[in-house]
């Protein structure tokens, strides 16, 4: 039986569909955040949801991230499954006490009596000309805290399956979406599916070098892999999909297979997600490595507003290509 042509959705549509399906499935799921109702967020990700589910379940809040995140923590503890929308990932700084000291710890400190089944959706990614306070990728902050799960989807398919899994999770999950990816299209089956948190995905198989890439960097890695292919280097692209829980097994096995690894993530390189992943790989695949594990992330500077400067602060297909060639001794 030939399959029908796969249905394509944008990243934003996939997110919206995941939310709508979960809200239909479970009346406890609700959305709160700035401009989430009629405006559907500045990125138009949530358009149409308030019309279907009403203002009780798609709740516009005042501009007070700390306030409505705290509201969500309490609502989650007392039976709802809120999905909080933090418009720009830069604003998570305002929610830190609610997330780090309350949401992440309540289950542990109450001996399992209370749960906080909430999701925080927010954004990451530079090169949108939004300047230093609206362009950061701060997901490493949450990865550092026990009790929080951190999801970094890179395709519409992954975004939908992971968001549904995140909403059904009994623990607080922070879900980072790349602002530049919302219009990217990809196949998303109409039928029901979820993707378990903690399962990496090999986006492209290869044999000479592994490019571990998260979120926005997956497309960069795939582009670099195409360039490398033309240079006779076979690159494998592995997407962890969740920074925590981390699928260490898949990362280490890929490193063992190729012996060379570049880890890339759009967060700041220093003390970032790439450091943790590189360390996991160095420890797990040490005797199979033929070169040091290289990391690539955002430069240690405020993201510049100047477009030419902004573009060089984060890895690009070209810089990854050159780094990979050098690592393979072919520069």
């Amino acid at each position, binding site marked *: 039986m030939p399959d029908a042509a796969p249905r394509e959705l944008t990243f934003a549509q996939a997110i919206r569909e995941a939310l709508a399906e979960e809200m239909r499935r479970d009346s406890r799921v609700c959305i709160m955040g700035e401009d989430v109702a009629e405006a559907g967020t500045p990125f138009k990700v949530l358009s149409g949801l308030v019309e279907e589910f009403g203002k009780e379940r798609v709740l516009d809040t005042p501009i007070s991230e700390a306030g409505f995140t705290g509201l969500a923590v309490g609502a989650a503890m007392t039976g709802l499954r809120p999905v909080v929308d933090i418009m720009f990932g830069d604003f998570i700084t305002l929610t830190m006490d609610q997330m780090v000291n309350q949401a992440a710890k309540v289950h542990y400190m109450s001996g399992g009596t209370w749960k906080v089944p909430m999701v925080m959706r927010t954004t990451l990614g530079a090169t949108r000309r939004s300047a230093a306070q609206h362009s950061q990728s701060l997901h490493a902050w949450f990865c550092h805290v026990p009790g929080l799960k951190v999801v970094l989807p890179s395709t519409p398919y992954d975004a939908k399956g992971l968001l549904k899994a995140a909403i059904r999770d009994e623990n607080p999950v922070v879900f980072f979406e790349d602002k530049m990816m919302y219009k990217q299209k990809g196949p998303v089956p109409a039928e*029901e599916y*979820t993707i378990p948190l903690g399962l990496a995905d090999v986006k492209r198989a290869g044999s000479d070098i592994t490019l571990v890439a998260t979120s926005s960097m997956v497309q960069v890695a795939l582009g670099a892999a195409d360039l490398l292919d033309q240079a006779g280097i076979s690159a494998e692209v592995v997407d962890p999909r969740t920074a925590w829980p981390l699928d260490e097994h898949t990362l280490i096995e890929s490193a063992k297979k190729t012996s060379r690894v570049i880890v890339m993530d759009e967060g700041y390189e220093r003390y970032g997600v790439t450091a943790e992943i590189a360390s996991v790989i160095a420890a797990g695949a040490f*005797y*199979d*490595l*033929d*070169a040091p594990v290289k990391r690539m992330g955002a430069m240690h500077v405020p993201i510049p507003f100047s477009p030419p400067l902004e573009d060089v602060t984060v890895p690009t297909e070209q810089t990854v290509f050159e780094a990979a060639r050098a690592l393979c*001794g072919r*520069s």
Partner: protein
Amino acid sequence: MALSVVMPALEMAQETGKLVAWRKQEGDRVVKGDVLLEVETDKAVIELEAAGDGILAGVNAQAGAVVPVGQTIAWIVAPGEVPPPEIAPAATARRTTAAAPAAPVATTSASVPAAAEAKISPKARRLAKERGIDISRLRGSGPGGEILAADILAAAPPSASTPPEAEALSSVARLMAERTTQSWTTVPHFFLVRELDATALVEARKQMLQTIEKTGGVRPTLTDFLVALVARVLTKHPQMNSSWTGSAVRQNPEVNIAIAMAVKDGVVGAVIPGANRLGLADIAAQRSALTERARAGKLRPADIAGATFTVSNLGMYNVDAFIAIITPPQAAILAVGRVADRVVPVDGKPGIRPMMTLALSSDHRAVDGARAAEFLNDVAEAFREPREWLP
């Protein structure tokens, strides 16, 4: 008079010893019985004691050096005495590749030339060791002259004795490995085995085959009968259809039977939800669709989710009987062997009957032996009287 300190022979057939560390240093005063140094053999690290009193002098081997047995590596001299002149620098001592950085021992003669070690990648070092390659003879091809895996491979292709590299696993194979390990190591399994006469089951299938095939278009297999019967018996035994939650037993409201199916890289449990309420034709149709999707590698997540009990039939592989591993959080799995003619007592005389063997694996946290036995007994009864359960 000067006493020589020599590399001792600690084992038969030992040719060299590795100097792990000096515990006394050049110029230190030592008393008989003091530990001078540590020596490593294949089996152990041992301490070498001073044979007399004096000053440690003429140290000519450093930590990390591999020294021939019997070679003098230092002297114990009287204050003011000079070590005998014949001690030449230990020409045969060489630095092993795995040598620790030379200990900062104050040596007078600094006998071992500190040959600059070539840089080598961890992978290349491992390969060189596995293949017995002397890396000091290699020129590295790395960007900074580092010895890389390719240099080792070029120097010595893998020998026949090198074990083949394990193939990377597919996700189905990996999941199977992880799940079965988790189950086998954490679920307290116990097993009940029952042999039974399958005459009625075989007969019932023959009788119902054509009607169902005509109306439903699908030919029901023996497995379909087993699923239908087991699902109905399970409704009488909710404990067998339960899950251990970590602190309690949860009885599952639905009876969803998984059928273990072989796929390309392993086995999956394809689920027939609510099998206790489905007729044979429906079960056969669903099983047939699942089999097709499983063979094509197109099972959907929903096809393998929510099972409460598994039936695994290896009869078609001519297996007489086998014991299966439970798929948590299910509480049990029924392993079914082939139907084969056996000589058995019939009315006190030897007769030939089609017999089959069932083996039930149960999670002892969720169910006990007596209850599992009652269930298995009812399953056996149902198999002996299938028409009573499947009108």
